[in-house]
């Protein structure tokens, strides 16, 4: 399984297309923090996001921060939340905004596979709960929009060696979550027979 270092936002689609489910990824550059309410505002309330999401890497997060001044925040503890709740936004994030990577914990159900294939996107799994480490990999909070949604704002972080991440779903229709569930369900039948 390959190890990749990627810098976001990406400009070359190959950066995503070369990833295969199970590969390891480490990220540099800029990533965008987003959560339930942020995406409800964009898609259900029809408010245009004040940040360019083309080629972006989105992180499912609601960071613990300390306010330094107007629009300026310092990190305290930044971790990642469960992704599955936000799966329905995958298609429009890819189709309308050109988002290329979504990072969270716990995986996406199968309904994410087709939009990710169609729009050249990948789901990158972080280690959930490993927030102390994640916080050290976020160098700075460079921008925040929609502060009234605190902490579910739209965040821009500069990161260094962010990871390790595992490609959970690639842009070719492969999902580790699908495969693990299929194998586990087959195994359950065998285990039940032994009970």
């Amino acid at each position, binding site marked *: *399984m390959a190890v990749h270092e990627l810098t976001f936002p990406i400009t070359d689609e190959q950066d995503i297309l070369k990833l295969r489910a*199970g590969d*390891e990824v480490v990220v540099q550059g800029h990533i965008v923090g987003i959560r339930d309410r942020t995406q409800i505002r964009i898609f259900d309330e029809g408010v245009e996001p004040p940040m360019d999401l083309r080629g972006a890497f989105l992180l499912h997060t*609601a*960071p*613990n921060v300390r306010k330094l001044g107007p629009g300026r925040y310092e990190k*305290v*503890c*930044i*971790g*990642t*939340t*469960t992704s*599955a709740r936000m799966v329905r936004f995958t298609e429009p994030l890819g189709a309308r905004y050109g988002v290329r990577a979504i990072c969270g*914990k*716990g*995986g996406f159900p199968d309904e994410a596979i087709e939009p990710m294939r169609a729009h050249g996107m990948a789901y990158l*799994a972080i*280690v*959930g*709960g*490993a*927030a*102390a*480490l*994640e*916080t*050290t990999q976020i160098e700075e909070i460079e921008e925040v929009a929609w502060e009234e949604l605190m*902490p579910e704002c739209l965040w821009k972080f500069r990161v260094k060696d962010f990871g*390790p991440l*595992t490609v*959970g779903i690639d842009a070719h229709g492969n999902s*580790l*979550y699908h*495969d*693990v*569930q299929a*194998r*586990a*369900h087959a*195994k*359950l039948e065998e*285990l*039940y027979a032994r*009970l």
Partner: protein
Amino acid sequence: MQQLATDLQASVEDAAAHLYVWALKDIPQDLRDALVDAQARETSVSGRRVLDTIVRNVDVADDAHNLVCQDTGIAVYHARVGEHFPLHPARIYEALRDGTARATLEHPLRSNAVHTITRENTGPNIGYRLPIVHWEFVADWDGLDVKCVPKGSGSENMSFLKMCVPADGVRGIKQFVLESVVDAGGKPCPPGIVGVGIGGSADYAMHLAKEAIMRPIGTRNPDPLVAQLEDELFALLNETGIGPMGLGGDVTVLQCHVEHADTHMTLNPVAVNYQCWAARRASAHISVDGTIDYDREA
């Protein structure tokens, strides 16, 4: 008597404030050992990557004095109150609540408490019926033990109840636990502790499942029949292949703990309460004179 009670209430509040933050930053040794064991047992590439990262994260939290995980959870306490402890449980509850609020404001910690309908924040990790306290009363004793278990939402959302029927037997219980952990997949941040409550009533089974996750890792139920069920479930769950973070692998759970209560002849309830790998827990013993002894391993 009045002065003693006031001083004791202050001690319990101090203990709660300390325990909440301490639990979030410094995980118990038995959990550290279980994570290192898991690291040694895991053979899949992605599973090893996850476990290596978890172990590294615990070290970073130590060095940076930061929280192990960002989710400060809901504060859940277990209070063992001695018959002769001179502070009434009504006041113990106040002290636990005030200590939780103080820790949240002073640190500061993220506050997660919201009204369940309006979803508006209700205060510094306190609110109506928050924090949650499990009570136990002990005869012929004058002490108080308090354990704080901050419970994250990712794992709490993976809670399941089934009213099996007596004809389903223990087999039905085992099937339901297996099915629950497979369905939860990567969402509760595996590998963690699977808490199982059996018997009693519907609500009590879930209460017992929560008590099961509060135990030190790998402790066994004193009833040999229940302990045997713990061993069997532990082995079976690790055959499901869900693996660390649900990416596939050998280690799906660090442990399975079962608590039980006798039940009605027509009932066979089984409840599953999942605790993530960040199975945070910290305890204190408070003496009659207000002295606090902290204990990370209880």
